[in-house]
C-alpha cells in the first residue's frame, strides 16, 4: 500500500517530545554495559574463546544489541501513537454531503456585528454553491427546523437547501454532536456521508467527537478568544435569609482556550467590582457580592478587553429594584400533583433529618397572609438532607423523600441563576375554596401547563412547576422567554403595547366593566382571557403576525415581529469589538486510527523483549 507521508497529520505533535527519552535509554544501556572488571592472566585463552564465538554475521551481531533497539523502537512507536496521526486526503466527488450547522447557544456570539450562526449560514450557502449536482442534507446540532434537526432527505435542489439553511434558528441549548451525527447516519442509511461541520465547536466533547469522526470537514466559525461572556447577572434580596442584597455574577468561557479580560460591575454610578479575570477553557467564574439592601440603581456588568474602556461591552442590565415578590421555581418529579399537594397553611414546621439527627426548622415563607405559606426546603440548609418530615398541623407527621436531581439538571444551562431543587410531596389535598378570592390565574402554555401566578397586597408571586428530571422544558428556547414574560408581568408598565417581539407580553386596558376578552392569534387560535380590573395581559405571542383582541365593545390589534436576531433569548449581548473570521478548512478523511496499529506494534515489541529475556538467546556477551 502506497502511503503519501505528506498527507499525514498529527493531532498532538507534542508527543514527539517523548523522543527525548531515546538518548536517556542509550545512556542507561551504556551505563549497564559497565560490567565487573576481571583481570585474567589467561587472557589469550579468553581471546581465543571470544574469537570462536564472535559472530561472523552482521545481523547476529546486531541482535546482540536487540534490547536497546527494542527500547528505542518502543519509544518511537509510542510517541507516534500518542501524537495521534491521521491521514488527510481530498474529498472524492461521488459522495453525498451532509451540512451540519451548529446552532447552539455559543453560536449567538456576535462578531463584527454578525452572529456566528449567521456566519455559519453564509458559509453553508457558499458551500452549496460550490457543490452543484451533489446530494445534500442540512442538519443542525440542536433542534431547529420545525423542532427537528433536519428536514427531509438528501436532495440536490439548491433552492430548497438554501431555504432550509435560512430557516435555521438560534438555539439556547448546548449542542449534542453525537446525536446529530447519529441522525445523519440514520438518514444516510448507516453509511456516513461527507459531513461539513460549520460551527465553533466550543464544547470539548464536540471537538473530540469531530476529531474522531470519519469523513468530516470542519469549517470553524468564530474566534475562540471571543467566547468569554457574562452568562448571568442577578440580584436577589430575601430578608428571611440575608439582610443584604446579593448580586450574583457568572462569567463563562465557552471556548477551548484560556481567555483574560477585565470585569467591571457598576450599580448606579458606583463601581462595585473592578478586576482582571482569566478563565480556562469551558470554565466559569461564579461569585456573589453582598450590598446594603437599600442601595438601588442600574446594575451593569461589563467585560472590557484590555484598557479599551471606550467599548461598551455591557452584557446584561438589571434594573433594581423590581419592588415585587420574587420568582420561585419548584421542580417536581410529579408536576401534575404539585398544586393539589400544596397544603396552604400557616406556621408549618419541618423536621429535617440529617446525619446529625432531627432538627426542627421553620420553612421559608414565600407568600404572605391569605395565600398562606408556600414552603420549600432549600438544599443549602444541609448537604446531607435526604428526608423531610412535614407536620401539616393535623397531628400527623409525614415523611417525604427529597429526590436529588442530577447535577446537570440543577442549573439552567443558559440562565444560570435559576437552580432547580427537587422536593417530592406525595399527599393530595384539594385546594380550599377560600382561595378563590385570591387571583390566581394560570398562564397556559403548551410546554408548561403548571404555572400559577398570584397577587397579594400589591406583591406578585409566580409559581411554575415542571418535571426537572424528565421534562426538557428548561432546555427549550422558550424557557427564558417565559421568564421574561414573568418579569414583564411583575413590572407591567414596561410592557410595550402594540409592537412586540416574540414572547413579549401584550398589556392593554380594555374596559373596567368587562370580565373576559379573547385574543385571535395569527394561526386562528382563539384564547379567552380573564380581565383584571379591565386590563388584559396576554403572553402567548410566540407566533409572528397580527393578533386581534376582542371584548364586547372593543377591538384592538397588535403585531409581533418575527426577527430572530432581535429575539431576546441570547445569553449574551453583542460585543462590538469582537473580530472573528472563518479559519482555513481542515479536511480529515478518512481517519486512519494508526495509533492503534502502532500501539499493537509496541506491544509486540514488548513481547519480543520478554521472550528475549526469558530465552536468553544470544546472551554470549
Amino acid at each position, binding site marked *: 500500500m502506497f502511503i503519501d507521508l505528506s498527507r499525514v497529520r498529527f493531532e498532538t505533535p507534542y508527543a514527539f517530545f517523548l523522543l527525548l527519552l531515546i538518548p536517556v535509554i542509550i545512556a542507561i544501556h551504556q551505563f549497564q*554495559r559497565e*560490567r*565487573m*572488571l*576481571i*583481570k*585474567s*592472566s*589467561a*587472557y*589469550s*585463552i*579468553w*581471546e*581465543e*574463546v*571470544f574469537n*570462536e*564465538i564472535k559472530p561472523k554475521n552482521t545481523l547476529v551481531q546486531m541482535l546482540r544489541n536487540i534490547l536497546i533497539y527494542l527500547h528505542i523502537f518502543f519509544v518511537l512507536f509510542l510517541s507516534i501513537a500518542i501524537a495521534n496521526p491521521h491521514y488527510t486526503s481530498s474529498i472524492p466527488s461521488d459522495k453525498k454531503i451532509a451540512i451540519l450547522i451548529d446552532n447552539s447557544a455559543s453560536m449567538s456570539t456576535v462578531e463584527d456585528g454578525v452572529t456566528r450562526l449567521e456566519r455559519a449560514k453564509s458559509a453553508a450557502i457558499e458551500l452549496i454553491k460550490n457543490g452543484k449536482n451533489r446530494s445534500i442534507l442540512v442538519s443542525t446540532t440542536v433542534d431547529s427546523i420545525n423542532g427537528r434537526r433536519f428536514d427531509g432527505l438528501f436532495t440536490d435542489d439548491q433552492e430548497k437547501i438554501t431555504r432550509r439553511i435560512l430557516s435555521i434558528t438560534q438555539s439556547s441549548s448546548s449542542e449534542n454532536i453525537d446525536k446529530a451525527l447519529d441522525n445523519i447516519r440514520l438518514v444516510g442509511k448507516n453509511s456516513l456521508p461527507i459531513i461539513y461541520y460549520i460551527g465553533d465547536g466550543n464544547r470539548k466533547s464536540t471537538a473530540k467527537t469531530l476529531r474522531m469522526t470519519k469523513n468530516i470537514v470542519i469549517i470553524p466559525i468564530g474566534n475562540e478568544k471571543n467566547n468569554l461572556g457574562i452568562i448571568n447577572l442577578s440580584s436577589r434580596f430575601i430578608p428571611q435569609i440575608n439582610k443584604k442584597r446579593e448580586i450574583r455574577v457568572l462569567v463563562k468561557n465557552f471556548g477551548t482556550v484560556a481567555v483574560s479580560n477585565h470585569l467591571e460591575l457598576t450599580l448606579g454610578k458606583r463601581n462595585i467590582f473592578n478586576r482582571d479575570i482569566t478563565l480556562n477553557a469551558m470554565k466559569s467564574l461564579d461569585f456573589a457580592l453582598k450590598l446594603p439592601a437599600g442601595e438601588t440603581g442600574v446594575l451593569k456588568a461589563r467585560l472590557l478587553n484590555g484598557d479599551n474602556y471606550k467599548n461598551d461591552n455591557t452584557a446584561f442590565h438589571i434594573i433594581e429594584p423590581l419592588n415585587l415578590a420574587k420568582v420561585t421555581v419548584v421542580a417536581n418529579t410529579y408536576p401534575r400533583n404539585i398544586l393539589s399537594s400544596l397544603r396552604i397553611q400557616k406556621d408549618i414546621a419541618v423536621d429535617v433529618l440529617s446525619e446529625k439527627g432531627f432538627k426542627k426548622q421553620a420553612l421559608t415563607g414565600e407568600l404572605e397572609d391569605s395565600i398562606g405559606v408556600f414552603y420549600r426546603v432549600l438544599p443549602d440548609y444541609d448537604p446531607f438532607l435526604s428526608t423531610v418530615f412535614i407536620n401539616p398541623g393535623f397531628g400527623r407527621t409525614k415523611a417525604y423523600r427529597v429526590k436529588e436531581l442530577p447535577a446537570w439538571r440543577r442549573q439552567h444551562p443558559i440562565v444560570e441563576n435559576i437552580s432547580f431543587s427537587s422536593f417530592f410531596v406525595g399527599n393530595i389535598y384539594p385546594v380550599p375554596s377560600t382561595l378563590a378570592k385570591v387571583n390566581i390565574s394560570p398562564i397556559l402554555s403548551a410546554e408548561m401547563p403548571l404555572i400559577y401566578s398570584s397577587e397579594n397586597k400589591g406583591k406578585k408571586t409566580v409559581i411554575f412547576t415542571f418535571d426537572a428530571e424528565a421534562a426538557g422544558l428548561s432546555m427549550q428556547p422558550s424557557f427564558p422567554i417565559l421568564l421574561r414574560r414573568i418579569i414583564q408581568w411583575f413590572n407591567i408598565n414596561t410592557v410595550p403595547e402594540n409592537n412586540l417581539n416574540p414572547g413579549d407580553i401584550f398589556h392593554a386596558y380594555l374596559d373596567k366593566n368587562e370580565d373576559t376578552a379573547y385574543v385571535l392569534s395569527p394561526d386562528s387560535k382563539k384564547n379567552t382571557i380573564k380581565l383584571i380590573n379591565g386590563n388584559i395581559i396576554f403572553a402567548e405571542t410566540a407566533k409572528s403576525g397580527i393578533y386581534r383582541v376582542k371584548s364586547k365593545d372593543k377591538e384592538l390589534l397588535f403585531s409581533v415581529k418575527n426577527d430572530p436576531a432581535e429575539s431576546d433569548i441570547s445569553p449574551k449581548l453583542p460585543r462590538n469589538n469582537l473580530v472573528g473570521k472563518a479559519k482555513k478548512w481542515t479536511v480529515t478523511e478518512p481517519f486512519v486510527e494508526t495509533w492503534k496499529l502502532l500501539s499493537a506494534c509496541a506491544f509486540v515489541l514488548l513481547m519480543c523483549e520478554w521472550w528475549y529475556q526469558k530465552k536468553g538467546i544470544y*546472551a*554470549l*556477551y
Partner: protein
Amino acid sequence: MKNEAFLRDLEKLSFIAKKINFGTRIGDSISKRRGNSLEFVDYKEYNPGDELRSIDWNLYGRVNKLYLKVFSEEVDLNVSVFIDSSMSMGGKIKETKLLYAKKLAAAISYIALKSLNSVSLFSFSNSIENVLPPSRKQGHIEQVFDFLENISSGNKTNINESMKNFVMRKGTATGVAIIISDFFSAPGYKEGIKYLIHKGFVVNIIQVLSPEDKKPSMIGKVRIQDIEGISALSLNVNEIMLRKYSKKLNRYIDDLNSFCTMYNVPYLHADTSMHFEETVLKFFRVQNR
C-alpha cells in the same frame, strides 16, 4: 618465606637430596674442559712448559716419545632456576602463582645445595631481571631466600626474549635449567626453551597455574582484561563459554607437554592449590624417570 613452617617443610625434603640428581648423576657431570680428575681422556704430545708429572713414562718406554696423559676436569653441577615474575604470575589473591613459584624455587635450591650443587636464580618477565650468581656454599640458601623475597611481579611475559637474553650473557655456565612459569606468554615459549637446549642446558619445565586459571568462577556479564596489558573483552560468561575455555586451556597445556616430550624436557604441571612439597616430590620423580 623464611618462616619456621616453611623451613621445616624444606628440612623434610632434604632427605631426597642424597638420592636425587638433576637429569645427570652427580659426579657424572664431566666438563669438556681438561682438568685434574682421575678420569683419563686422551694423550697429548709434550710441549715445553707442560707439567712433567703428567708425562706417561710407560708410553715413552714403548714409543720413545714424550706424551702427556690428559684427564678430564670434573666440575660442579650448576642448577639455574628461572622464576617467571611477570604480571600474570601475580594477582590480588593470597596464594599467587608467583608465591608458589618462589616456594618451589626455594625448595629446589635447597635440595640442590644439599646435594653439593651450585645454585643460581633468575627472575624474568620480558627479559632477565634479577640474577643471583651461582654458589655451592651451604650458606647460599640464605641469599636464595633473600633473592626470592625481593622478587615482585611486573611487566609482560616474554619467555623467548628472556631466555635469549640469558644465553647471550657472557660466562653463562650450562647445567640444569628449571623454568617455573605459567607459560602464558603472548610471544610464545618454544624458542626460549630451544635456546637453552642448544646452549647445552638440561631444561626442566614446571608450569604453575592457579585454580582460577583452570576453572574460572566468573559468570554473567564481565569485562575481562589482560592482566599484563590494556586489552579487554566484554563477555557474558555462561556455562557454554566456560566449557570452551576449559577445552582451550587443556589444549594449551597439552601443546606445552607435547613440545617438552619432543625435546626430552621433563615437564610438570602444578596447581597452586597443591602443597608445594608434593609438587617438589613430583618434580624429582619426573627427573628420575
